[in-house]
């Protein structure tokens, strides 16, 4: 499952999409919106995507993970539009035969998403201002 959605992400459905009998490990990463940045109070966020390209790049990332960690299956769903604090903006589920590969593939997928998938985030502050935020290397 690779998708961009304007509504709340169904975590169980994302996870179920990678589950299979030969996978002994399943990891689900959730990214949620934070209430502060550099000490400033964040009251809400908005995400936008270059939609068809974002889905294409997420599909590439899933294929790269499957090539690097044999048997890895990767699902990525990113939410766009207006989000309130504490809402889930992205879910990545990975299944692999064994757990070490699962952790590695999960980390790869979220890092690659932040580097390459054309999605943008604007933070809205309590004082009415807003700023487009740039992902930092982890």
């Amino acid at each position: 499952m690779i998708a961009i959605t304007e509504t709340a992400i169904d975590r169980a459905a994302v996870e179920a999409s990678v589950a299979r009998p030969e996978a002994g490990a399943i990891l689900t990463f959730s990214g949620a919106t934070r209430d502060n940045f550099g000490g400033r109070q964040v009251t809400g966020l908005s995400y936008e995507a270059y939609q068809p390209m974002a889905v294409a790049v997420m599909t590439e990332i899933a294929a790269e993970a499957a090539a690097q960690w044999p048997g890895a299956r990767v699902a990525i769903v990113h939410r766009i539009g207006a989000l309130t604090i504490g809402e889930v903006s992205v879910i990545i589920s990975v299944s692999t035969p064994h757990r070490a590969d699962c952790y590695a593939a999960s980390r790869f997928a979220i890092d690659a998403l932040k580097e390459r998938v054309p999605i943008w985030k604007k933070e809205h502050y309590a004082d009415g201002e807003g700023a487009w935020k740039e992902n930092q290397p982890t």
Partner: protein
Amino acid sequence: MQITVRYFAALREERGCDEEALDVSEGTDVAALYQQIFSDSPLAALRVMFAVNQDYVGASHDLADGDEVAFIPPLGGG
């Protein structure tokens, strides 16, 4: 030749639209097009990536008639 340009995030706000059709001369590359459009803007120095027909390309990629060009400002997904 005619191309379509897509704007996102800060670039969309600065330009005041999310998409427009432009006439550009043969031999224009994507970085030159960005400078033509944003030379008078504080965003001229922004570190952008470029996509043509929804694939990332280098700054010196030459445009062709009918291309969809997107300027990709710093990403914030996740």
